[in-house]
């Protein structure tokens, strides 16, 4: 990922113990009691993310705890990691590096979760044209 000098925010990626969500380690999908697998810190540009996604816009501005923080944490499932990285990349560049259907589907899920409308459209189009 490129690091933007402007206002950098750190994103720490965590994942719970179960390695694959698909295999559904039934016990818990809320992560409060799950284990953090790893933490990844990225420098991002909040205006770019906010412009592409209402989720990020609110995250940075709606008056809750994150609005005041320089380091903002997103907790995600391990299975979402690759897709989120792709999505973040897409929000900067407008292109995706993955072309396989399962990977695109994961990106689409992530785009839907964070309401990146352009990403949703982009993935859907690629999937339809496969």
């Amino acid at each position: 990922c490129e690091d933007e000098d402007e206002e950098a925010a750190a994103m720490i990626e965590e994942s719970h113990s179960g390695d694959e969500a698909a295999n559904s380690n039934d016990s818990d999908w809320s992560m409060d009691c799950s284990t953090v697998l790893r933490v990844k810190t990225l420098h991002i540009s909040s205006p770019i993310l906010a412009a592409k996604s209402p989720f990020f816009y609110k995250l940075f501005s709606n008056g809750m705890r994150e609005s005041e923080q320089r380091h903002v944490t997103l907790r995600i499932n391990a299975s979402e990691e690759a897709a989120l990285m792709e999505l973040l990349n897409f929000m900067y560049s407008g292109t995706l590096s993955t072309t396989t259907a399962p990977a695109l589907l994961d990106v689409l899920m992530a785009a839907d979760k964070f309401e990146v409308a352009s990403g949703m459209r982009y993935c859907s189009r690629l999937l339809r044209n496969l």
Partner: protein
Amino acid sequence: MSAQKKRNFQIEAFKHRVVVDPKYAEKTWKILEHAIHEIYNHNASGLSFEELYRNAYNMVLHKFGEKLYSGLVSTMTSHLKEIARSIEAAQGGLFLEELNRKWADHNKALQMIRDILMYMDRTFIPSTHKTPVHELGLNLWRDNIIHSSKIQPRLQDTLLELVQRERTGEVINRGLMRNIIKMLMDLGSSVYQEDFEKPFLEVSSDFYRGESQQFIECCDCGDYLKKAERRLNEEIERVSHYLDVKSEAKITNVVEKEMIESHMNRLVHLENSGLVNMIVDDKYEDLGRMYNLFRRVSNGLSIIRDVMTSHIRDTGKQLVTDPERLKDPVDFVQRLLDVKDKHDRIISLAFSNDKTFQNALNSSFEYFINLNPRSPEFISLFVDDKLRKGLKGVSEEDVEIVLDKVMMLFRYLQEKDVFEKYYKQHLAKRLLSGKTVSDDAERSLIVKLKTECGYQFTSKLEGMFTDMKTSQDTMQGFYSSMGAEIGDYPTLTVQVLTTGSWPTQSSATCNLPSEILGICEKFRTYYLGTHTGRRLSWQTNMGSADLKATFGKGQKHELNVSTYQMCILMLFNSADQLSYKEIEQATEIPASDLKRSLQSLACVKGKNVLRKEPMSKEVAEDDAFLFNDKFTSKLYKVKIGTVVAQKESEPEKQETRQRVEEDRKPQIEAAIVRIMKSRRVLDHNNIVAEVTKQLQSRFLPNPVVIKKRIESLIEREFLERDKVDRKLYRYLA
């Protein structure tokens, strides 16, 4: 292979569908519920947006949307019930403040709740056709707060009472008012209308009904209008400060109906201060206010217009039929112009130049000016007066203004041909006596008449000007060809007038004194010598003369007199005393002219070059006249006017009338022939209608006269009656 792959994603797509533990959902909801409590308790800044969003997302994703939504409804409802209790508990004036504060809090909370539930708002709600979070928040506020039985009536009363207090002059917190009204509007236009606007309009209607009743009993019209205008502006201002813009039309409608429409008839006719009084006193401001207020209600303007019209008609009718006014034609016309000016000013200053008002004014003038058959004569006399003396030292523009005003009156006349008759007579007198002040003004008026009525109307008038110019040249030619030959004769100036162009006067020629017969004869010979085939006859009733006279103590005077007066005075060169009869015999001046001439020679103080026995104002047939050698005057030149009744005497009037009727005959006939030539066959009523239409720019033909003309045309075989239908006429080529 691709089919294989497709099946692959379908399988992968389901990997997110997790079998879920219901306890787990409950736990997640607790987190969100707690967050909603914290938000309402102003502790939102300690909450993690990311965590809450993620939890809400997971609930929806894992099919617990329903649980999330119903949880939201019940949590929010319980908060609102608590809020309702705190608002209900607020004392007196704090009620609105508390409501306003809680409303602001709720809005802020709602915004955050909506943020964390954004995913649900976007996916779950549309697919299940539920109410979106924001709208849900407003609906719950409406149902639990605004429509709570303890709040609803209190809110309405409080708002209406504040409006009422403001109407009675108190200062209220408009900002608070605006916020509360804005809240009602945010809750939906039906909430605003039902909970505020409708009762507001009803209360206002009652208030203004009462107030206007009270005002009309004790105020005069001007004050009432001022109050009504102020109330109207207040309501408009109120809307702009704290009501929905759409309410403006409704509340102004209430004021208009109660304060104007219900009372406008009474207002207009209010004794001593109503519309007529305002017009009479030129109350432009009050009139303007009345116009602007009445314009707002249907029929308002027509009431003003009708009252104004009947007032102008009455005033005008009184003016033109008042026998006192008939004594002075110039004053008569001046008064007409004053009436016109006055109302023009009112229409332009107070009635925003309303076309319908201008038309009403014009038609009123048309109505009353023609009530007096002498109007055409008087208007011509007015012009005569202005062009004789009234315009001296007046700038060209002002002359134009006066002439334009005269033209305006002229336009109102039905009998324009009568005006033409008089105008011709008066113009002739002005030209022949050299009394016209401004040739430019004369010509300017002719041009105006021409544009108004066409070439035909003025061609004869223009002929008169031509004659004057030609006569000047003729006189120059006469004197240069005669040279010294006529040195001993009196100076003679002759105006040669073309018959037909000039008003035909009964030209009873009088006997000219022998002293000037010689030069007259020389002129006749000269003129007929240069223009063969013409006939000359002297119009002794139109001329004037300058006489040198020596009186008792040897003082000399130059007397400016009419031709008739000259003839009389010349008789006294050979006699000191003459009887009326002797003068009449010697001069053969028509009796009426003779009497007038003698009267002005003997009965006017300061101009009495003759003495009459017995002394009296009137001339009788057995009077005797003596040369007044005691005559004195400070001036060397003495102008002896003729006692002319400026306007026509009764018999003269009859005569003019008759001539007008005579002149109309050929015009009516010409019109009938023109119409029949193109139509070939036409029934009686249609001919009358068409003839009237064709001639109305000049006069209003009498149907009886038209019928007579038709009969005459039938006699002369221009037309014939249809053999079958006797009402039908045919044109005979």
